[in-house]
């Protein structure tokens, strides 16, 4: 087994770089992934029983340490880079420092990292857990062999959809038939998602690569590439993608005499909520010097456009509502139905007096 140095998770690395505990406000973890991923991002993996837990005393005047507890284990079985029979692992005391709360006398499967300062550390961002909850991990770790034909990338592609009248999107389920590409320095592999939206690319070489989901027409193609690193031919990397439908709409705002108005905030609200002062579910667009506005990422649906159509958080309404094409009542507003992929010109909003 090769020695990998230093290989901490991204978040853990961030934490280790933080010099003072009081600069940390909360622990936020990236998913550690399944055992086949976590095992190859940790430096040491072992099963052991907690012999003791002691505070790590700093020297007078020394800044507070990130991890304040020293946990001593009697190692019962080593899986990745097996440590000595007795090993010390630093961790935090909990309460936002990402520390894992070990209990003396209990057995654990420990995923530990080697920080630059030496020793071993672990926390709740790893797959460390009581041994009785680590069956899947132990099964995988016990079955590791020296041979493998290559690393694996797998995951799922789901659609999230948001209705214009709703603040949040909802999982609409798996997307079948989406092409997912894995591109490395010397290879490209494409697969297509199955009926459950799942994909898997196998036999990947060690090294960095990009995983990209190909957005079909009507879906937002941004943010669909993720960088990965296959660290061992026996490792896996899990990546899920979320695709959302998108439409764009543009128009202009003019005054009573037809002159373009710059700096006007234009609202797009769900047509069914027009006239009811909905919250600003869509970020307002601001007109440029030509009086033009554009919404470049609207969820498909039926909209009313205009000025002062929403209740903005913390901001008092500055004037009466004016709906496209320049009417005060929602019932008279021109509504526009946007389908996925549409790039619609909605027309001109005429403001009579401002």
């Amino acid at each position: 087994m090769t020695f990998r140095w230093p290989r901490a998770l991204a978040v853990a690395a961030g934490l280790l770089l933080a010099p003072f505990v009081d600069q940390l406000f909360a622990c936020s973890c990236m998913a550690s992934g399944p055992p086949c991923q976590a095992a190859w991002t940790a430096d040491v993996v072992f099963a052991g029983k907690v012999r003791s837990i002691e505070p790590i005393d700093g020297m007078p005047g020394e800044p507070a340490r990130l991890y304040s507890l020293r946990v001593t284990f009697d190692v019962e079985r080593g899986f990745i880079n097996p440590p000595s029979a007795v090993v010390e692992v630093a961790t935090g005391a909990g309460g936002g420092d990402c520390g894992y709360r070990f209990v003396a006398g209990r057995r654990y499967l420990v995923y530990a990292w080697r920080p630059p300062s030496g020793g071993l550390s672990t926390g709740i961002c790893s797959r460390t857990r009581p041994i009785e909850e680590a069956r899947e991990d132990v099964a995988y770790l016990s079955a590791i062999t020296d041979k493998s034909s290559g690393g694996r990338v797998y995951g799922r592609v789901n659609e999230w959809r948001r209705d214009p009248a709703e603040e949040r999107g909802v999982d609409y389920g798996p997307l079948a038939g989406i092409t997912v590409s894995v591109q490395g320095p010397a290879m490209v592999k494409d697969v297509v998602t199955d009926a459950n939206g799942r994909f898997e690319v196998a036999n990947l070489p060690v090294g960095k690569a990009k995983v990209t989901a190909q957005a079909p027409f009507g879906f937002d193609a941004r943010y669909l590439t993720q960088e990965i690193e296959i660290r061992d031919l026996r490792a896996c990397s899990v990546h899920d993608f979320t695709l959302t439908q998108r439409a764009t709409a543009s128009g202009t705002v003019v005054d009573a005499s037809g002159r373009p108005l710059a700096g006007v905030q234009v609202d797009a609200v769900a047509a069914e909520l027009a006239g009811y002062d909905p919250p600003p579910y869509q970020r307002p667009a601001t007109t440029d010097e030509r009086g033009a506005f554009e919404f470049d990422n609207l969820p498909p649906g039926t909209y009313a456009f205009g000025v002062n159509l929403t209740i903005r958080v913390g901001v008092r309404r500055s004037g009466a509502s004016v709906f496209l094409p320049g009417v005060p009542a929602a019932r008279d507003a021109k509504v526009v139905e946007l389908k996925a992929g549409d790039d619609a010109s909605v027309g001109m909003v005429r403001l009579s007096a401002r």
Partner: protein
Amino acid sequence: MRSIHRWHGSRITRGVLRVWRLASVIVLLPAVTSAQTWADAYKAGDYRKAAELLQPIVVADVQSLSPPEMDPAPARHLAILYASGSGVDGDPVLACALAQLSHQALGTRPPRVEGDPLAWAAAYKAAIDESERFTRGNCDGLTKRQQQAVGDAMGCLAFGMAETRLTIGNQTVLVDRSGFRLSETDQSPANGGWCPQLIARVGSRTIDPPADAAPGIVARSFVELLGWQAMRKAGEPGIRYVLSWTMFELRGKKLELVATEHLLSASIWPSTALPPDFDARFNVEMIRSGHVRWRFAGAPPTRGWIMLQEGGSR
């Protein structure tokens, strides 16, 4: 008995006649002064109209007035209608509960003393005795289970809450005043902590997956309750009636509360349980992932989701 008077073939004393007149005043005076319309309908034999007018009065009494101030007459007359099934579907449980409410109101609201205090005391006692007989007449014949239901009805006075059985999937749901419960489990009745005063609809609803649903997504089964609830908002005069919608989902061997929402509001007691266009305005459907979306075209429109539980139907 010192003197006699003809009354339905029997002879009663003048003092007792006075007692009877007083009792009538106690029972009917509020009707004359505060609820002329229901009294008119009642006297005219239009019991359906009388019931419609009496229900909100009793609800208002129960919801917003403390028992000592409650008017015994509306509850008593409504009890008579539910006992006889006049103008309403007969409901012995509700009749008993209403009789008890009326009796409580009478017992905690002695009449003002005018004239001879002894005579008034006798009259009051006679009225109490008569009310007790009335209550017994409505309650004594009930089964033990019905008597238990009377307790539920006293706790939550709901008109139109018929006991029924619903079938959802291969399960049977028992519906009564205490709530919903599966017939094959000992789960406590689920009611969502909600007390509707006028039941509009109780039923089961199975929502099928759309044609393009993801593999493994199956139909979801619910028990649905629509009912009007009397509410008083702080700072607002009068009572408002809101149409509450509650959904319980059959999850394994349990009914779980998954949605509750106020869909409509009215300032007067709803004359019909549901507006005629209600179903056209209310849409509940499943999307590909198994989540259920509901929308109601109200003013403003409302909407929400009943999410698929983790590891649920998939």
